[in-house]
């Protein structure tokens, strides 16, 4: 479903600040794969996300979505195939617009936007049904402005907006990191439920090791722009946070350095 081939990204090439953010990354996600990504500071996790979404053009390498070469597509074109939830709960929704209007915009993601009403009776009914699955009571507040919602509610709405059109790829960029523990818990379980029910091909970056172990069928660990460790299926299920740290030390010969890492 998603194939990343030999991607390299260098920032500030030829200056003292030169930084190899990604160094020849290869990764392939099968349909329905749920991959969690962990890594130390500056490992290139966010850059990888941005290369896939089209925010950052890679120096070399290819990105294929569903067999289609998309590396030259600008971000807005690629996002027809990609649902994305950002770390900042404010980033995924438009605050002065209503819940139904936000959902209508997400609904138009993989269609051509026309001069037809964005919110219709029929769509409202559909939005209501989708909102019910969140169990937050948002289905009764369709015409409330999103700016009035709490951070957790907004992130839940963002998650719904990113997933209910069933995109080819779902990108989750530390989407629970800015929430308090109970809200993060809620979003994590919603994520698990949504991905399980719709079988979306998902790539999730997280700082929470336990979350990376609990969710998904595959796990990759990145360091200095490379994928240094990978586990899937049963091998992943047997992993623990300690084992992960040991793996890192064995491969890199140094301590896992991530001041934001949550060891679980």
């Amino acid at each position, binding site marked *: 479903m998603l194939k990343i081939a030999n991607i390299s990204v260098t920032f500030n090439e030829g200056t003292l600040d030169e930084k190899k953010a990604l160094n020849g990354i290869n990764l392939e996600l099968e349909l329905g794969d749920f991959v969690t990504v962990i890594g130390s500071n500056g490992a290139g996790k966010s850059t990888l996300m941005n290369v896939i979404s089209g925010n950052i053009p890679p120096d070399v390498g290819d990105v294929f979505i569903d067999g289609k070469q998309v590396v030259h597509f600008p971000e*807005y074109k690629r*996002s027809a195939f990609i649902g*994305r939830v950002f770390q900042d709960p404010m980033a995924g929704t438009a605050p002065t617009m209503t819940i139904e209007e936000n959902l209508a*915009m*997400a609904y138009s993601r993989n269609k051509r*936007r026309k001069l037809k*009403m*964005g919110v219709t009776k029929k769509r409202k009914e559909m939005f209501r049904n989708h909102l019910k699955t969140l169990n937050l009571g948002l289905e009764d507040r369709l015409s409330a402005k999103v700016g009035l919602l709490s951070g957790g509610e907004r992130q839940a709405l963002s998650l719904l907006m990113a997933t209910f059109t069933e995109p080819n790829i779902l990108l989750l960029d530390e989407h629970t990191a800015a929430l308090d523990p109970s809200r993060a818990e809620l979003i994590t379980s919603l994520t698990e439920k949504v991905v399980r029910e719709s079988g979306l091909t998902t790539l999730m970056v997280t700082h929470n090791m336990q979350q990376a172990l609990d969710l998904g069928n595959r796990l990759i660990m990145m360091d200095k722009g490379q994928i240094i460790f990978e586990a899937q299926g049963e091998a992943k299920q047997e992993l623990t946070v300690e084992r992960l740290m040991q793996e890192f030390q064995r491969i890199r010969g140094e301590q896992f350095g991530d001041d934001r890492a949550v060891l679980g």
Partner: protein
Amino acid sequence: MFISMFGAVESGVIYAIMALGVYLTFRVLDFPDLTVDGSFVTGAAVAALSIVNGVPPVLATIFALLAGFIAGCITGLLHTKGKVNALLSGILMMTALYSINLRILGQPTLSMLNESTVFTQLSSFWSMTGIDTALNGLLSTLGLERFPKTWGIVFVMLVVTIVIKFVTDYYLKTEVGLALRAIGDNKRMIRSLSANTDNLTIVGVGISNGLVALSGALIGQLGGFADVNMGIGMIVIGLASVIIGEALFGTKTIARATLAVIGGAIIYRIIVTLALRVDFLETGDMKMITAIIVIFALVGPRILQMRKEKKRRMLKRQQLSAESGGKNHA
């Protein structure tokens, strides 16, 4: 007094179209577009030149709208594709338009006094309906002696402006319109929802300036001339209308906000007319009056809000001390 008030409402309704354009960029797209000062004149100039050359007035007015649309699109292009700062791209376009407008006019002022305009056509049609006689008869029973030349312009323009308002309301609720609004609200998000923000911005600024030019073309025809300097300060007048309207009528929904903008434009004209009746004020003071009105409309509501909040807290405090007062002083 009645005649000048009537004139204020009449031109206010036409300026409201310009204010709707300013609302689209300033509020919906969050794009402070200064092209307005130029595109307003472009509208008047294109209409005047076309009319003088024998183009039917309605068609001439449509040409004006298209010219404004193109000017706005260029500003949008500068900003999105050229990555020029929003304010600067407007200023650059406004400056360029000054020369372009002068070229279109061929001289600083082009008169349409002896030409047939949309309004002369409208007035002659309107006088056949006999509505004027009826209304003026009604006014004379109230003791008025001087009557407006025609009621036709104010009625028809009110209908035109309201139609533009409803079309705008509808447009902003369509799938395209929702994406347009999201640009001013959360650009990154709407891009991640597969909307081409560059093209939407270009079209949005284009539509805005199309409306501004339409308003300019109509104001030019109402006054019977197009002048290269008639657009100076137009953006501030547009902002004044938007801000006054919002302060007085609120912005709860799109339909409410656009109605507020139209109301704001008319009230602005009335305020200016009243101000000019004050003896020591001159025509030249108008810009300052405008600036003061805008400042007042911006700062006024905040001060009121702060006072209300202060009062509320005072009341709370008094209540609390009244409740515990007995115990403390016992």
